[in-house]
């Protein structure tokens, strides 16, 4: 009996393969979405470049450190949009489109992630990764910081994906609309590109415990820059796991409200 997790991952990857094939059928559209994704990521880089050209910047953060933070946040948010196309998923839920997916013998998370795609976001991931490498090469990396960065990044990204799936199911149940979740995540994504300190105490609570984006961008970046203690690292990791667990349980509870066959 093949391990359930391995089967789920294989199903997810196979779905991605076919989504990519479908995406590339319309080459002009594929190119446009990738360009769109690349243009969108330039917003924050331009903002940071202008800020550091006309002023002393943000306290405690050099220009390249800011580039690193913006890139990390951009990668995480685009990875989220790649996996959870909120509008598409809500459309499937509203029209009963999940029926053919939910009868498949795979885990619910894997099924939900494989039922739609946001491949257009791949351009943003690649573009931000290039800038991330450039910024990291200027800043310099130590192995411990890099490892801590990767651990927090992966944990934070998983938290964000589970949290988003839970939100989509919640707003499907309450409003049957994806508008709020999409706008909320756009807002959260923009906020995640700057140090949490600029938002004050309330903002820091909002972007960590309420909307857990800080665990996917700010804390990983701090870990890479070696400006987080071991206790801080463990704290961020534990809270991230706790929010993941709560989101997963809530998602499982909420997905029973899906009405088969639409309506």
């Amino acid at each position, binding site marked *: 009996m093949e391990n359930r997790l391995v089967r789920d991952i294989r199903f997810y990857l196979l779905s991605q393969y076919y989504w990519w094939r479908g995406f590339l059928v*319309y080459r*002009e*559209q*594929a*190119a*446009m*979405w990738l*360009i*769109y994704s690349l*243009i*969108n990521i*330039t*917003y924050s880089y*331009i*903002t940071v470049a*202008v*800020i550091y*050209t*006309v*002023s*002393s*910047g*943000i*306290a405690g953060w050099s220009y390249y450190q800011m580039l690193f933070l913006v890139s990390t946040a951009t990668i995480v948010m685009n990875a989220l949009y790649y996996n959870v196309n909120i509008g598409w998923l809500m459309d499937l839920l509203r029209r009963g489109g999940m029926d053919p997916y939910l009868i498949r013998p795979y885990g619910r998370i894997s099924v939900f992630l494989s039922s739609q795609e946001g491949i*257009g976001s791949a351009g943003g991931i690649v573009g931000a990764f290039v800038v991330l490498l450039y910024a990291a090469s200027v800043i310099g990396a130590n192995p411990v910081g890099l490892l801590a960065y990767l651990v927090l990044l992966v944990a934070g990204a998983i938290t964000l994906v589970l949290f988003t799936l839970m939100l989509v199911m919640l707003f499907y149940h309450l*409003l049957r*609309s994806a*508008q*709020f979740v999409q*706008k*909320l995540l*756009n*807002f959260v994504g*923009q*906020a995640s590109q*700057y*140090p949490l*300190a*600029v*938002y*004050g105490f309330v*903002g820091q609570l909002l972007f960590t415990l309420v909307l857990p984006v800080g665990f996917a961008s700010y804390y990983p970046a701090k870990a890479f820059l070696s400006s987080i203690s071991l206790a801080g690292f463990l704290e961020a990791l534990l809270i991230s796991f706790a929010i993941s667990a709560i989101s997963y349980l809530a998602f499982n509870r909420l997905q029973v409200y899906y009405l088969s066959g639409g309506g």
Partner: protein
Amino acid sequence: MIDRYAAVLIIGFKQQLAYKKDYFISLGFRIFASFIMIAVWTAVYLNSSVSSIGGLTLPQMYIYFFLINAIAIASWNETVAENIQDDIQNGTITTALVKPVAYTAQVFFSSLGNNSFAGLAVTVPFLILISFIGHLVLTLQSVAFFLMEIVLSFIVSTFIFFLIGTLAIYLTNIWGIIAVTESLYMLLGGGVVPLNLLPPWAGGIFAALPMQLSLYTPAATLLGIVSTGEIVQSLLVGVAWAVPLFILSVLVWSRVRGKITSVGG
């Protein structure tokens, strides 16, 4: 004849009334989005210990980001391209073409109805609120210039998005192109950073593009940080774009309308 166009406009207006909840959500998040840039620029001003950056004080920077989030809803008309694409994809263009109103007029007035609702439901209340909170000193002249800029920006963007919409006749799906154009509007219009903070060479290029009329110039006009000469120059740039774009739209439509292939429906 005018009744027909008014009817299309009212239908466009009513279509938006069906989604009141979405507009309130949009309004709320536009306010929140402004707060992010306000928090960031506050940190920048505090760290730099200066009273103004690029001629903008911190309170003016606050108002700028509130203003552009309000203006962006009504100053460009991507709905034209979206409507043409929908008509092509759903096959409804066949019925639209036989109606006793020119198709171009239908898509224009329908989008005007959509945007009028957005303007009245979101932009106007938002602007009134900002004017009071930000203590904006509004004169008859600045309000008149502001309205001229918004109307001209809307007209120019209508032609741009109409031309993009005609691509749907060949490509069927043009969501990506619409999204890219909207992104460019945000970027080149001053939605990311005020254009006066850009290096002179970039500022010069952006000032020659019609996008500056959609966000930066109207916001700067209300803030009083641009001279009358600069405002007139921006309006002339808008007119210089509007005329050739109108001629191009007429020429393109006369050539492509015979190539429409209806699908769906």
